[in-house]
């Protein structure tokens, strides 16, 4: 069901959706209707490149950030580091409409007993979709508070049965020069990784939506991970491959500048980035030009759930 809001009002030409955006929207909408079947879809009007569709039957969870307001949705969807679509944080919202998110397959492979290629719909319906509000801390020292929709990555991992030799999980993002800009200077496709215990941690969310809707392309549609106690770049977007490996995988930013971005990249106020302090962050959760600058929390405030995984490790060395 497509609800057209404010039908009677005359639409200014500035608001008319460009044809390609509309086509992408239609395509995605059809894809979702077909692919998700039982989900029961109510489409929201596209704002910009929006092909986001409301997700029904979300399970509410205790994951919340009671002391911080949720970031306005427009901000979360217009300020994205998604270098495949340009280097400026405003670029992905302008360019990512070109990404075709249907059909979409995710190959889960490597050191697992049951390797398998999942069609997007299968992955979407594997487990009930939960809504979780997480702090989101970018390595650039700004942060947001975002309600994500998904289920624990652990649920998927259990299905494919990793072999004892599998020590790390690697995520490969989509690489497609027809739809993406893929700027020089970075080796594509984007690759990220987690240690097995990090990937199995219940906080690690296989994410399909935000704000109760499917992900906008610029947020990494149709499926990404969210690892809330790590800097944002660890949370790979638009994933096409999940690979179980024995050795620590090469990851994009670590590969580019290992002195700036470690493999772990846990949010840690005591370890500065060479060019800026990580002790505090600009909290982007209001429509005010005077930002609240707040102290950054160890493990982004998730120490209780994750600190034990790093017991005995020198986090100054393993940054």
């Amino acid at each position: 069901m497509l609800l057209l809001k404010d039908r009677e009002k005359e639409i200014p030409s500035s608001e008319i959706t460009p044809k390609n955006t509309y086509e992408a929207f239609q395509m995605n909408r059809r894809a979702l209707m077909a692919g998700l079947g039982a989900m029961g879809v109510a489409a929201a009007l596209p704002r910009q490149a929006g092909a986001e569709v409301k997700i029904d039957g979300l399970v509410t969870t205790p994951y919340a950030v009671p002391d911080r307001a949720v970031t306005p949705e427009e901000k979360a969807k217009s300020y994205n580091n998604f270098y495949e679509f340009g280097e400026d944080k405003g670029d992905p919202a302008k360019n990512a409409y070109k990404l075709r998110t249907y059909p979409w397959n995710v190959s889960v492979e490597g050191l697992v007993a049951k390797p398998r290629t999942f069609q997007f719909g299968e992955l979407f319906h594997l487990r009930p979709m939960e809504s979780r509000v997480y702090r989101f801390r970018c390595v650039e020292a700004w942060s947001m508070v975002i309600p994500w929709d998904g289920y624990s990555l652990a649920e998927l991992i259990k299905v494919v049965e990793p072999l004892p030799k599998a020590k790390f999980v690697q995520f490969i993002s989509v690489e497609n020069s027809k739809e993406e800009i893929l700027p020089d200077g970075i080796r594509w496709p984007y690759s990220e990784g987690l240690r097995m215990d990090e990937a199995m941690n219940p906080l690690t969310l296989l994410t399909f939506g935000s704000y109760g809707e499917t992900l906008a392309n610029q947020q990494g549609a149709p499926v990404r991970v969210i690892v809330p106690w790590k800097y944002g770049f660890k949370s790979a977007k638009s994933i096409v491959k999940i690979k179980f490996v024995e050795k620590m995988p090469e990851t994009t930013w670590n590969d580019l500048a290992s002195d700036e971005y470690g493999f772990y990249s846990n949010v840690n106020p005591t370890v500065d980035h060479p060019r800026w302090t990580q002790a505090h962050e600009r909290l982007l959760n209001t429509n005010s030009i005077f930002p609240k600058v707040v102290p950054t929390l160890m493990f982004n405030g998730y120490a209780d759930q994750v600190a034990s995984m790093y017991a005995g490790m020198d986090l100054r060395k393993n940054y």
Partner: protein
Amino acid sequence: MPSRAIPYVKVLVHALCLLPALLLLRMYFNGTLALEADPVNYITHFTGDWALWMLLGSLTITPLRRLVSALSWTIRLRRMIGLYAFFYATLHLLTYVLLFSGFDVPAAVAGVRAGHLMEPWTQLKLIWPTMLDDLKKRKFIQVGLAAWTILLVLAVTSPQRVLRAMGGKNWQRVHRLVYLAGMLACVHFWWLVKTGVRTPWKVTAVLSLLLVMRVGYWGLKKMKTGKVAVAA
């Protein structure tokens, strides 16, 4: 350009140079600035970009005059554009001090309104240690501050009276520091972007071209005067 027209041109250039600042103010008042996802980041880049562009603008005048003699009157705009570079660089620095560093603007404003005129100072003292620490640790802030300091010196020594008091030779020596300021500003830009990001290449290319043109001109002049000397 008849010299009678120059005052009008100056007014026009003033208006053009102020336009970016006015646009930013307009964005503040009509609320679009607040809707930017990260307003502080936006202001920082906006003022930094314009400072750099103004600096490049003022550095364009000399090579332009040498190439096109009909444009030699533009020398009368050079100081003004240079001062606007300083103006935007100062806004850029203030953005860092007042918005980036954690300075509590609402608290400072509320304090002043309640009659505590020293409140902004108190707030500044609160963030001072963090800022010094930042300056000590970060090379890109150091070179940025160095570039701003040069522009400050040039701005202070820019009036005709100061020029006369210093003597043309000395004045020119000091004002050649503008090349260093340009280079430092570019280094500042390169050092602040992420590894792999190449956004600063355009301004770097323009600055390089402007500097190479000067070196070329200087070399040519050397060669010519050399020849003259030999002929004589």
